[in-house]
């Protein structure tokens, strides 16, 4: 790794690290601390291959590593998932003062990890169906159907919450 490689890596971090961390938080639905750990781990992988990948869209590579690590962490860490998400389905209706935004985030967290990743990549990062598919290593058709199902679930909850507020 040359000095120039090192400097370029620092530049890359300065430009992209915050965005990667935000993606990780949204996709794995874990605490900031967990997400930071995950991003560090992913960036170590990027750093390892930096001289080879730095000229070939390192951001896409980093994003792929982060998203997939976030999905597998969300799948593996069942204890944390249940702590964060175990909630009776009608809590929203019981608490009319619950902010709609919080409701949406909670519903997002309750989606299966990969479906959540699709929603984050498509609607928060504004990635195309094609790009989302290549980041997740699945077909554009899967992205389309997962996005539709995820939104439908959230919409259903939103209606419940809104009715409660009314």
């Amino acid at each position, binding site marked *: 790794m040359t000095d120039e490689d090192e400097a370029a890596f620092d530049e890359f*971090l300065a430009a992209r690290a915050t965005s990667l961390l935000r993606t990780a938080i949204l996709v794995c639905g874990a605490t900031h601390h967990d997400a930071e750990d995950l991003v560090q781990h992913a960036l170590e992988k990027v750093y390892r291959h930096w001289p080879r990948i730095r000229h070939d869209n390192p951001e896409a590579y980093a994003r792929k590593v982060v998203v997939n690590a976030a999905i597998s962490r969300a799948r593996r860490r069942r204890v944390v998932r249940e702590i964060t*998400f175990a909630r009776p389905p009608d809590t929203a209706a019981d608490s009319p003062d619950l902010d709609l935004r919080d409701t*949406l985030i909670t519903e997002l967290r*309750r989606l299966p990890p990969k479906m959540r990743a699709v929603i984050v990549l498509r609607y928060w990062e504004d990635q195309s169906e094609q790009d989302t598919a290549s980041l997740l290593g699945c077909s554009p058709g899967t992205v389309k159907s997962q996005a539709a199902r995820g939104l439908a679930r959230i919409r259903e909850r939103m209606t419940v919450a809104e009715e409660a507020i009314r």
Partner: protein
Amino acid sequence: MKVEDAVAEAMSAHVAGVQAPPGLGREVRRRHRSRVVRVRTIGAALATAAVAVAVPFALGTGEPASTRHVANAPDRAVMDLVTVPDVTGKSNAEAIEILKRAGLTVKEPRIAENIVTQQQPAVGRQVGKGTEVQLTSLPKAVEPQDLGDLGDGRTFGGIHLGYLPEGLVWGEWSGKDGFGKKSYTTSFDEPGQEDGHYSVQVVVYEGDASERIAERLARYDDGSGVDKVDIDGRPAYLGYFTDGGETAGEGDTGATATIGWTLRDGLAVEVFLSPDYAKKADVSAELEKIAEGIEIAR
């Protein structure tokens, strides 16, 4: 507003305050340095093996005995093949012991308690005895310790667990307020499982949080697919639930077997069996036994 826009806005708001911490680059590089303890790889051992085999053939039988003797010593030592065992998920200390027992070597010293994440050569490969295995390890993930050191983990949140299925040990973590204010949780697992895995998780709900359980008890009435059982004279629900709390069938993959009841006014408990553990346990019987063993701690 369209739901995708609402979700996008909520996501933006949710992470708006998040910034990558300063010193991230330094931390990534530190991890990189500690990642691999580079050791002589399988290549060197195989090269020796190849020489050991090739030499006697090339030299033929008419050569002086001394040459063959030199060639034969490493021959026997190296060509004794062993299968590489799986040591990922184990601590370095355990991994080293297992590998040594299998006749393989590892370069020491290593941080004993770090967890092995990768190994080279891979599991199941046949390699020469004495081959050095290259291990990649990371520090054990830090689990939350909201309730501090719980000893054997059986007494927490005002309750005591009198019974746990055999072979389970405390998961060495505990969480507070994850299931509502004044809720406490911890888990038990078979030794050697990866971080975040659990077999039995117990949640204590105190005060307002206990209302949730009371509500569920009322909701899961006949016909909801949830059983009602009796725990020391108090009604309990016993069934399978998804992460979101919806009821699910027994066969649903990922659904969590759960028992919940109120121990006294303002104190309720839920016990989960992980989907993994449920496969090898008599689910209802174990949940009821654990529940019956739970009492208010003095």
